[in-house]
């Protein structure tokens, strides 16, 4: 049975991707909110925000990418929830297939869909004047961080997808994730924030991740930020994966 893990995964991935290609609104909706925020902050608030860099869009884009990921993974929870509700998950579970491939197919789908949304957001950023002289290696590093963050947050999304009792519940968990970048260095530098807020902002994962991406794109030395960012991503990934798997086993056995 284990020899079929890859084929089963591929078949189920093909199914989920077909869902997305038949309702591309999931990718559009995922990109619309971050793009709207980007427009709002660049063209309305941006002029009044002093970031010490040239071009606010250059400062803002990394945070917008994090928000894109957070809104993209909400759909993973939603799709998984619908599979649970419709009974098709039971059908897959009762077939002689690798059981883990049912979850992995959803996770891989999330990676593909979120990547497309991220590309759309970056393209809009370019239209709005985002520029970076970063080389291939720096871009690869940025892609790596975004990939790892998407993977980690997708496994977080699997948990409500498996346990929610309503559609709203399945996606509600992503609201705090979308809000978290506001209390970080994503929109404004943390220097002007009052004491406790600043402490929170500087020590939560979004700041490390956003700073690392921003420095990579601006060809600045990334310092320790990138390691803190990676530790956060891997930490979230491991914890979320374990919790999701335990939840899955309990739900299905």
């Amino acid at each position, binding site marked *: *049975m284990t020899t*079929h893990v890859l*084929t*089963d995964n591929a*078949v*189920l991935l093909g*199914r989920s991707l*077909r*869902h997305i290609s*038949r*309702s591309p609104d999931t990718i559009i909706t995922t990109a619309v909110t971050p793009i709207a925020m980007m427009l709002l902050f660049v063209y309305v608030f941006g002029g009044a925000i002093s970031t010490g860099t040239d071009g606010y869009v250059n400062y803002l884009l990394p945070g917008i990418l994090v928000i894109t990921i957070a809104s993209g993974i909400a759909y993973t929870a939603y799709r998984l929830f619908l599979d649970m509700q*419709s*009974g*098709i998950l*039971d*059908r*897959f*579970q*009762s*077939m*002689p*297939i690798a059981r883990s491939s049912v979850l992995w197919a959803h996770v891989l789908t999330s990676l593909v869909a979120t990547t497309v949304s991220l590309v759309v957001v970056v393209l809009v950023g370019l239209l709005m004047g985002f520029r970076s002289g970063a080389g291939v290696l720096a871009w690869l590093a940025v892609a790596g961080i975004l990939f790892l963050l998407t993977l980690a947050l997708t496994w977080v999304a699997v948990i409500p997808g498996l346990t929610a009792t309503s559609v709203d519940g399945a996606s509600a968990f992503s609201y705090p994730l979308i809000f978290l970048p506001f209390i970080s260095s994503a929109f404004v530098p943390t220097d002007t924030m009052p004491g406790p807020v600043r402490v929170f902002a500087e020590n939560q994962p979004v700041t490390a991740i956003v700073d690392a991406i921003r420095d990579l794109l601006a060809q600045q030395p990334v310092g320790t930020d990138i390691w803190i960012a990676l530790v956060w991503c891997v930490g979230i990934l491991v914890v979320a994966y374990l919790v999701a798997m335990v939840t899955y086993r309990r739900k*299905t*056995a």
Partner: protein
Amino acid sequence: MTTQLQDHAVRVQGLEKSYQELTVLRGVDFDVARGSIFALLGSNGAGKTTVVRILATLLRADAGSATVNGFDVATHPGQVRESFSLTGQFAAVDEVLTGRENLVLVARLRHLTDPGRIADDLLDRFSLTEAAGRKVSTYSGGMRRRLDIAMSLIGDPPVIFLDEPTTGLDPQARIEVWQAVKALAESGTTVLLTTQYLQEAEQLADRIAILHQGRIIVNGTLAELKQLLPPAEVEHVEKQPTLEDVFLSLVGDRPHGDTGQHRNVGPHE
């Protein structure tokens, strides 16, 4: 493995299951002979679905044992899953995919060669060829159910579990499903079905067991069950058509009429 075990497609012994405080099964025993149709009859909440989910390796029993096709569900879930197909209480079909894509999906997951041909054969058998390229979300309840059952037949599993296969269907769709189930048994598949409709058990089943308050209270053929009551008194009664007869003759498209001309469901004989 004893030969006795092999004679039964399904064997359930002393099955118990509770959800927190609620005890659903209090020691359920029954056997299903190979190639027969066995109906588990019970009202809502009697525990029928719980029995099916345990047999389908989707739920673990608290006590007791169950084998499917000679394999223990607790110790050999892999082989059990190779031996049966489940048609759950709600048509477990992918709404976004077309009917044909649903069938191809299951054929691929069962690692069969030529999934396309398998899908086309089943579409034909279940009179879904015309709707094959349409999204399932546009299907009627009866079409969904037929697709659902067709998906369960892929790979020719020796045992099929049908959990309330006709709940929520209109009379025509119900008759279509019955025809499909009968055809299955004729081709040698063992069918375990749960139902809350007495008529359904009467129509289909070789043996009927009544699950009540977590136990099987009777188990036998229809004739045996009828003998449990005092012999029928002979009364002179005018034979009235049932409402179902009226309904079906008025709407006029009894799907698999007595002539057998439109009989498309089930394996070709």
